[in-house]
């Protein structure tokens, strides 16, 4: 027995997970090097759901892109459209009417509610707590119904327009929303009690995947993941957009930095959302829903727009050359920022904790589908753009020299050393 344990310890395995894996519902490839049960190195490879959306925006007009960018993510679709709308309005030098801004914020907070409840179910499922999974998703139906009544769709709401919103909130709907929120508030209080007191569940969350505030800062994590480590990072507070100046929120913080803190932060954020939705419904500014005139061609320039998606900061860069289509739209989604923390936090933990740590950041792979992350041989180094270019040049030079056909031998000799793990030159 003793010797057996000894030999097992000496052996090192690489456990590949994904891109097709029963435990992973979205395509991503992870490689965990394990010694015995302990993870000693981790790497990720993304890009299995690459759809070329950023390039696609360049061949559609400004309004059509609204609908396409909304479909980057099925869960946080409204916030993508909001980020895009705010950026384009900034470029055009216009601002949506206050009522539209308030409705934007309200739909965003409803969306956060549905996203966090979805995540709660997902995380509970990952921890083997199927009852919580079922209950959380049942209650999520309430907010899905509200969103359907408000915008006509359960997902991909299309509530935004350039220069305003499409849908008004009627008095009848407002009372329906209030009712739904009352129910959800009661249920959320119950879930908060469950995740902080159920001893079986706490064994899977307390003290697991601990990320200190310093680590969180260094890894550049965003959203609830950062706030669970005590880092105040919330675009709604730091740089209020839409109606967040009129209807502010207070950031929810936790200091522990473990998985339990992430549960607590997300659930307590729900109360913030309910509160702000109630305030908006009570004091919805009167006026128009949409601007009288929104230009079809947007004047040339560049704009950056940052919003707080349910998972963290969502960043849009939009460049216009004065035509009716954008010149460049760059999207950086929060999951990409948080992915590095998974790789760091899993090292030194048991393999069984890996799914929980991964789900702790609320990963969204379709938001996250970058192209172009290559790995060289056995080491886990990523190739930089310069290095790839050099490889390409060498490849074609070699091919021409050797007479064309079959010239696949790449000579990796005279390359400059490249900095590790640089994720550069990528597209959603």
């Amino acid at each position, binding site marked *: 027995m003793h010797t057996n344990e000894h030999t097992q310890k000496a052996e090192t395995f690489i456990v590949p997970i994904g891109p097709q894996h029963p435990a992973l519902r979205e395509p991503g490839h992870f490689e965990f090097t394990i010694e015995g049960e302990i993870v000693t190195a981790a790497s990720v490879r993304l890009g299995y759901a690459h759809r070329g959306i950023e390039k696609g925006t360049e061949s*559609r007009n400004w*309004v*059509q*892109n*609204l*609908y*396409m960018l*909304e*479909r980057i993510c099925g869960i946080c679709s409204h916030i993508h459209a909001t980020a895009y709308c705010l950026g384009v309005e900034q470029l055009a030098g216009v601002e949506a009417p206050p009522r539209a801004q308030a409705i934007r914020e309200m739909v965003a907070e409803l969306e956060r509610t549905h996203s966090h409840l979805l995540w709660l179910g997902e995380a509970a499922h990952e921890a083997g707590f199927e*009852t919580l999974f079922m*209950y959380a998703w*049942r209650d999520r*139906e309430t907010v899905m*119904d509200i969103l*359907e*009544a*408000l*915008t*006509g*769709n359960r997902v*991909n709401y*299309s509530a935004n327009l350039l220069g305003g919103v499409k*849908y008004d909130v009627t008095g009848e709907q407002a009372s329906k929303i209030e009712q739904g929120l009352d129910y959800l508030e009661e249920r959320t209080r119950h879930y908060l009690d469950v995740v902080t*007191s*159920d*001893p*079986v569940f706490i064994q899977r969350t307390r003290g697991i995947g601990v990320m200190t505030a310093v680590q969180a800062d260094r890894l550049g994590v965003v959203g609830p993941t950062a706030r669970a480590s005590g880092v105040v990072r919330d675009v709604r507070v730091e740089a209020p957009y839409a109606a967040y100046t009129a209807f502010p929120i207070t950031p929810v913080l936790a200091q522990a930095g473990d998985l339990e803190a992430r549960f607590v932060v997300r659930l307590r954020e729900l109360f913030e959302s309910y509160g702000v939705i109630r305030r908006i419904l009570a004091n919805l500014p009167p006026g128009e829903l949409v601007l009288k005139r929104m230009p079809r061609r947007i004047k040339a320039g560049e704009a950056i727009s940052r919003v707080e998606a349910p998972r963290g900061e969502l960043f849009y860069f939009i460049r216009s050359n004065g035509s009716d289509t954008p010149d460049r739209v760059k999207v950086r989604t929060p999951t990409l920022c948080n992915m590095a923390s998974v790789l760091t936090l899993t090292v030194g933990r048991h393999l069984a904790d890996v799914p929980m740590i991964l789900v702790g950041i609320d990963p969204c792979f379709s938001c996250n589908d970058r192209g172009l992350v290559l790995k060289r041989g056995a080491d886990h180094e990523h190739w930089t753009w310069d290095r790839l270019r050099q490889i390409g040049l060498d490849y074609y030079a070699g091919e021409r020299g050797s007479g064309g056909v079959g010239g696949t031998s790449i000579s990796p000799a005279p390359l400059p050393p490249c900095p590790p793990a640089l994720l550069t030159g990528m597209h959603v």
Partner: protein
Amino acid sequence: MFGEIVKGLYTTLKHLFQPPVTVQYPEIKRPVRNRFKGRHELKRYENGLEKCIGCALCAAACPADAIFVEASENSDEKRFSPGERYASTYEINMMRCIFCGYCEDACPTQAIVLEKSYELSFYDRASAIYTKEMLIVDVPVNGRSTPQVVEPGIFNRAIPEMEDPK
């Protein structure tokens, strides 16, 4: 620990006696909301004329490139819609459609409306293309079917008088 487990089991036991939340689709269908965006319909005026004038603005607006419109000339002997032209071919590829409702916004005569039907499934790709016959609504009770023979000079305008913006 034991007490906590009993508490958890009591929670699940309570739910055993509550009515199930599952809707037994397809036997029972949950009603959709008013603003729901389902399958498109091409509308008619009360007299039976088609609202669609074949301008193809919906096709131009469509972000998913799902709509194909071909227009032909109207005449008073063979009138489909008010104005000069009507849609002789109107096809929506339901596999491309993203149900965003932008076609509805673009339509100058409110001819295309996203209605409540959501049961769209096909056995092959060809049947995903909904033709004009499948999309257009039935002729209203007081109306006549198209093409109609009409008095000259009444339906010269593509957007009839009563629909003019005030």
